[in-house]
């Protein structure tokens, strides 16, 4: 799974521009299932299992990542941008980025620290005061390489960290995509719909339409979720911790999760001895928000990999947690059909 995760994380695909990610995923699952791409770009796969059941189960993850879009080119050749998804300005300044299909290199700089006033040093800059420098001296020159509407992604290395952690951009939610590809290739026990969604980061938009077309009875959302188990944070505010297994929350900002599935998830984790934890704060949200309210309602649960520094160029996860999440989803999917 590690190599697959690396390959997927390094592909650029902000919300609304997921095609490169989708094409790569199709190349991985082709021959293992039936699939189609809908009007928004969601990749909807149907995988025939060894058995059929009267319950329709959908497992999904989102393909898009947070990033930026070029909104204006100034006379001096610098690029103005908008954020695509929620990104804190403190993880935007001082980074390398790549722009557009031709992968033009750029940087997001800022006034030298020597020239900042005392007050300026103490406050994060506003995102709309930042710009991208690609080395161009004029708008005409920049326009030869960059167009308005071009996607911008963090230029960030995938690297191993410590004993069993990795650091990369876009772990949210290529971790989920990785688990789904593995599940498809392993062939599920029961017939299952696997959906790779678009536009999660700008408001759970892909999953809204794919949930409508699939019309599942049950849904399991695979995600990366925020872990704040870092220095100086008290236990109750850590939300969840790396190395403590799959995260199954009871509630977040978008969803109160199905009680039956929540209990089944922890029961399954206990039964198969899979590390599993819940969230200690009501924080974050994911495609469950759109899915559980689809049509007349869908029994929905999310299984997430705890991830530090979510929505930054340096997301950090523990690969043991990825393994635990994968094992939990696999076992849980089977038990949902046998409910």
């Amino acid at each position, binding site marked *: 799974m590690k190599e697959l995760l690396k390959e997927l994380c390094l592909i650029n695909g902000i919300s609304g521009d997921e095609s490169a990610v989708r094409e790569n995923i199709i190349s991985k699952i082709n021959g293992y299932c039936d699939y189609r791409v809908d009007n928004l770009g969601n990749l909807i796969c149907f995988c025939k299992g060894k058995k059929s059941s009267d319950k329709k189960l959908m497992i999904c993850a989102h393909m898009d990542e947070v990033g930026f879009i070029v909104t204006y080119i100034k006379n001096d050749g610098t690029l103005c941008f908008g954020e695509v998804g929620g990104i804190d300005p*403190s993880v935007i300044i001082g980074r390398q980025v790549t722009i557009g299909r031709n992968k033009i*290199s750029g940087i997001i700089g800022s006034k*030298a620290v020597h020239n*900042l006033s005392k007050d300026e040093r103490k406050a994060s800059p506003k995102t709309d005061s930042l710009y991208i420098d690609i080395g161009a001296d004029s708008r005409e020159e920049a326009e030869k390489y960059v167009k308005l509407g071009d996607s911008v992604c963090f230029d960030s290395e995938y690297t191993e*960290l410590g004993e069993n952690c990795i650091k990369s951009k876009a772990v949210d939610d290529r971790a989920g995509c990785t688990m789904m590809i593995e599940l498809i290739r392993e062939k599920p026990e029961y017939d299952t719909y696997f959906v790779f969604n678009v536009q999660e980061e700008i408001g759970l938009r892909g999953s809204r339409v794919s949930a409508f077309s699939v019309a599942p009875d049950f849904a399991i959302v695979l995600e990366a979720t925020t872990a704040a188990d870092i220095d100086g944070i008290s236990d109750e505010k850590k939300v969840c911790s790396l190395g403590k297994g799959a995260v199954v929350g009871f509630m977040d900002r978008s969803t109160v999760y199905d009680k039956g599935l929540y209990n089944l998830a922890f029961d399954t984790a206990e039964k198969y001895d899979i590390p599993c934890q819940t969230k200690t704060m009501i924080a974050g949200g994911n495609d469950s928000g759109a899915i559980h309210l689809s049509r007349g309602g869908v029994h929905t649960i999310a299984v997430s990999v705890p991830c530090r520094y979510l929505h930054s160029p340096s997301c950090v996860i523990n690969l043991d947690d990825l393994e635990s999440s994968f094992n939990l989803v696999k076992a849980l999917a089977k038990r949902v059909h046998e409910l």
Partner: protein
Amino acid sequence: MDLKKTVFELSEAYGASGNEFPAAELALDMLKKYCPDAEMVNGNVIGKFGVHSESKLNLVLDAHIDQIGFVVTYITDEGFIKIGNLGGIDRRLLPAQQVVIHGKQDIKGVICSIPPHLTKGDSKVLDFDEIAIDTGMKKSELEKIVSLGDSITFDVKCRSLLNDRITGGALDDRCGVASVLYALELLNNCKTKYNVTVIFSTQEELGERGAKIGAFEINPDIAIAVDVSFAYAQGENEQKCGHLGKGAMIGISPSLSREISDILINTAKSADIPYQLEIMNGLTSTNADQYSISRDGAKACTLSIPLRNMHTPVEVISLADVNYTAELLASYIKGD
């Protein structure tokens, strides 16, 4: 010499202030091609260029080899590394930066970033004592590799931008080191007007400390500090900045020798090498400030390569300026 390759190699080498060894060793290796007897003296890399004679004035070319970074001050029970700063660092851009910790072996880490659900939209910038580094390791494992006092640098690969421009993490002042090396290459086999000594000095970012002892050691008549200075970018004061691609910035300041400034200006003019002026009103905050008052004093001047986003992982320079700086140094040394 492939100038771009040299700048990339030097800039990607590690050498935080007080811990310059890997970068200094690389620079020493590069310098030996031109100064075979070059050696490390108390951390500084020093080499004599060509044959020195009593009849010529002693000239030193200085570029500092250190870069800004951090130092390990504590390891918490949870295995997070607490840090202090080496040099002036913009704390606003630290969250989620990738770094390398130079322990018994180099290991990678990420500077902790507090997630938005805990900051409540507050844009407060953390103080150094609130900042920690995540290595993904437990304390017991970490302590086998990392000791208090180990240095830490940003983990940045150089990238080419448009227009001959380069971005990287330690261009301040490895681009200065590269331009000094390139000047020596341009001088190969030429007669020099001065006895030239090169020094790649340590601890500039902590207050020009390597240059202070280097100046005593070398005892020059004339000193040129080849460093970087502010290049204009959005948000900067244009009156106080040079411009990328328009040549080395020749310093003029009450603390510098106007005689040397004028010679450099005239040399640039007659050799048709682009240059800019950098007018300062006192100290220059470069190593020139040390050479001018070492022993019985020296005539000092600054040649600065314009650079954007100073002391960040995304510093930007124009390779053309590194080239112009080398050409100006070479012409000056030949006495053109």
